[in-house]
């Protein structure tokens, strides 16, 4: 197919960014991951990056499959280890722009330590965390982000653990850019991703997404679109809100916005300075 110069009609507006040979994707109808991918693709389009220099790394889970649909160098790694894998790529080739797209369970639960430490080191990565409050790929288990007292298959009598507050964890560990949007804040989300990708250092964008298949079904919250609308309608934009207040309660108001935007030397900068100081 190398020499087809005939202009074909586009199958999809983002055709050049997606692996069209893998469509249809695996996500359920009404899932918010698609929105996150669209926003990401839109951001790439607007950024006009050299896509050869971009690399997407994912872990395991529903969101972990994102890497497989974006037509750049993409890695689908092991559970929770997307960030260290991406760290290796970034340090191995500092020219690369590395984006980690994964879910809440992958990044905050099993990968929590890597999240904390990559933020502490301030490795130049952009992390897009799609938070759907549940482990969806394995069939709806309780996640560290599950609000109380939501029902899941491993909390059959209601969740009682305090949920994680992803922006706060990111801030406390040293991330330089932290924002949160719901899956329907498409334009704002897109611009947030653009900001995050342009920012040197560890930046985190959390996307609140519905899980139509498990979270909403077990808790009887309607279909995916209902939930998406619910999240959108119940969100309040408060830029610069202290991250302490960002806990998400069950079916309550969600504070969204850009919370942290600060400067810190990245790992590579610090390394270069240190090497200079050493006379090397």
């Amino acid at each position: 197919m190398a020499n087809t110069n005939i202009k074909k009609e586009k199958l999809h507006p983002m055709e050049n960014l997606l692996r069209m040979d893998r469509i249809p994707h695996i996500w359920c109808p009404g899932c918010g991951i698609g929105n996150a991918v669209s926003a990401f693709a839109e951001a790439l389009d607007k950024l006009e990056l050299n896509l050869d220099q971009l690399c997407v790394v994912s872990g395991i889970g529903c969101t972990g499959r994102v890497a497989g649909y974006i037509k750049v160098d993409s890695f689908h790694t092991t559970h929770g280890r997307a960030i260290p894998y991406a760290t290796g790529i970034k340090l191995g080739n500092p020219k690369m722009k590395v984006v980690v797209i994964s879910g809440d369970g992958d990044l905050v639960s099993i990968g929590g330590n890597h999240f904390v430490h990559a933020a502490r080191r301030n490795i130049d990565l952009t992390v897009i965390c799609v938070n759907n409050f549940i482990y969806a790929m394995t069939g709806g288990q309780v996640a560290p982000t599950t609000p109380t007292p939501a029902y899941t298959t491993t909390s059959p009598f209601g969740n009682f653990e305090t949920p994680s507050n992803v922006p706060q964890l990111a801030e406390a560990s040293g991330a330089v850019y932290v924002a949160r949007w719901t899956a329907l804040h498409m334009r704002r989300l897109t611009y947030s991703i653009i900001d995050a990708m342009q920012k040197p250092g560890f930046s985190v964008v959390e996307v609140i997404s519905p899980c139509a298949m498990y979270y909403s079904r077990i808790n009887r919250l309607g279909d995916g679109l209902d939930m998406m609308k619910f999240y959108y309608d119940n969100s309040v934009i408060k830029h610069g809100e202290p991250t302490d207040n960002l806990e998400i309660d069950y079916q309550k108001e969600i504070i969204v916005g850009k919370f942290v935007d600060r400067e810190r030397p990245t790992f590579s900068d610090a390394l270069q300075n240190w090497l200079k100081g050493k006379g090397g």
Partner: protein
Amino acid sequence: MEKIIEIFKQGIESSKIDKQKICMVSDIPYPSDITDYLGIDFFHTSRGRAIPFATGMKLSNPNLKPVVFIGDFATLGGNHFVHAGRRNMDINVICINKFNYQKIAGEDAPVKFPRIPFLPYASFDEPLNIPHLARSCAGVYVARWTLLHTDKLSESIAESFSKVGFTVIDVISHIPEVLDFYYKHSEEKAGEDTLEVKITPDKKIIVGKFIDRERPTFIDAYNEQLSSVLGDKFIKLE
């Protein structure tokens, strides 16, 4: 016996807690006479896994009071730290924090640091702000002392025993000369915002009790939630 253990012993004794119920879990080995010295059980687990080990103990026998000593905490067990805090597991964590700073509050250390083979990057790889991380992951009691604040540290330990929930005490420790230097450049500020207590070369080391609050523990939340759903059929965790 190591200094921290002596202080720990003072802490236990002044807290009037039933010694038998304390289990010390650590990922660093201590001399084998520690059990006789303190009169408690001691478990040396694999690196970084002391907190989940203690979590298992606590849930199996809620009467136990596991105390976790973590050495160069900052790395291996970070995730367990965050999640135990989030769950508010009734565990007391004592972090032995041995960071290296040639400079504190703009002043150079008077001694040459011992060679630290583990950390070729020590001079620029920023250490975690442990009190702040502990606060962010919802610890109920957070304090920091150097090892030379003997009395205050032991008081703090005793106090943490009276708390129910995830407590963190960041203990700054080092070889005596350096520790002395750290001690001289520390400043007590109780209730300081944990964001401000990050250790940097141009500020004094801030010590003190930063957080003291109440939250239901994992076991309380579990019992409450399940009783409300299941009523009598539920066998409480006690």
